[in-house]
């Protein structure tokens, strides 16, 4: 897959992860969003949770692929921008806390209630922060993850 398609696919995955993540809160039905034609599925907690899980597997695959490639070949030639560092760190934290959410949902795992709450809250807070940072980066026209040169997520040459 060429880099431009990889980048677009990545963005689509992140969008649907955010959508299905927000759908875990009981708000789409309350605010009639799931009443809109084609959006009824957003009110199905089990379905949106399964989609969130499936997309998480794809996202983790893509992130690890990018990270491996970056560390092995481009770490010295391409420097992450400040906004890129923040977003990469937030992605890492979201994935980390998300994996813990998956683990705590396994039938043979029981974590103490306070730990469960902290996992849930941090996952939510980091996701909200990423949304804010990404929006700010978009508005300020600084959506590149790198200081200069190519952008691993924009499909330019390295």
């Amino acid at each position, binding site marked *: 897959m060429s880099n431009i398609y990889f980048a677009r696919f990545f963005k689509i995955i992140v969008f649907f992860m955010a959508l299905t993540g927000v759908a875990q809160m009981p708000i789409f039905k309350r605010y009639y969003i799931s009443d809109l034609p084609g959006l009824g599925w957003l009110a199905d907690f089990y379905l949106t949770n399964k989609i969130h899980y499936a997309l998480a597997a794809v996202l983790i695959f893509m992130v690890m692929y990018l990270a*491996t490639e970056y560390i092995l070949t481009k770490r010295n030639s391409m420097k992450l921008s400040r906004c890129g560092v923040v977003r990469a760190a937030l992605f890492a934290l979201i994935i980390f806390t998300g994996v813990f959410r998956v683990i705590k949902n396994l039938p043979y795992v029981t974590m103490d209630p306070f730990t469960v709450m902290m996992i849930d809250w941090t996952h939510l807070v980091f996701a909200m922060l990423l949304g804010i940072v990404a929006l700010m980066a978009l508005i300020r026209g600084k959506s590149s993850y790198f200081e200069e040169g190519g952008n691993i997520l924009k499909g330019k040459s390295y």
Partner: protein
Amino acid sequence: MKLKKTGISRRNFLKGLGVGSAAALLPSVAPSVVSAATSDSEELMTLLDISKCTGCGECVQGCSDVNETKYPDPIKPYPEMYPASRAKPEDWTDKRDVDDRLTPYNWLYIQTAEVEYNGESYEINIPRRCLHCQNPPCANLCPWGAAAKQKNGIVRIFENVCLGGAKCRAVCPWHIPQRQTGVGLYLRLLPKFAGNGVMYKCDRCYNRINEGKLPACVEVCPESVQTIGPRSEILAKAHELVKKNGWFIYGEDENGGTNTVYVSPVPFDILNGAVEKGAGKPGLQAVADSMADEEKLATAIAIAPFAGIAAGIIKVGRYLSSSKKENDNE
């Protein structure tokens, strides 16, 4: 936490969390729980031999007496919520005495089924309350961490954290938790736009268990319908009754396994057809494991990082070998 008595300040809220955390670190069951067979290493299970239940209601009254201090005590009027057509208040404060269904003020009620089976007539009474699933979807899917299972198998909703979104009720196969508007944390956050109170259900008298006492419904039952103890022992006892009497069991595998088993001389599908069902009145239908698909998808998530690293290494390998070829050609 009762809003009327204490208010929910940030300090109280954090204090509540601290207490919850500390409580969670306590041994899950004190060794002196009356059932001699309790242990810290196993989840607690209850067995209900419904052939013994006469429907006297002592368990309902006992539950109410013991848990009254945990019941909601909201202050009226409740804040208006938007959109009003969807975010409707659920107010049970004027119906505190309702005992023929589950409510925020009634965590246990008795169903009755009059049935014929094998040419015999039966009147079966079934005490109903939260079954305390082994892998509870209410706790797994709460986006806010307000519900969780303790190490001793008790599934609780933390009233000082719950926003009353009622997702737990939606995802529970029996729709057990019940909502009371006008109480809880949502009043301190966005009362008009998010939340709608607190969800309530049986917490299996977790505080009494921690003190080494029996849950009230178990203790007060004059017919000894209920037995509580480590899951393996209770299951063995249930299977013994089933085998000896040719009875039927419910709860062992429902929703992937619960920590409540009912044994009955009448098959549960017949009882399910005979009991009154509806809001606050759960059925006795067969229930598949709600979280089974998530478990399978968890495997994909476990594999994903390694697959990603492998794909990255392959890509880098190809990149390096093509660079080498270009250099060789030059």
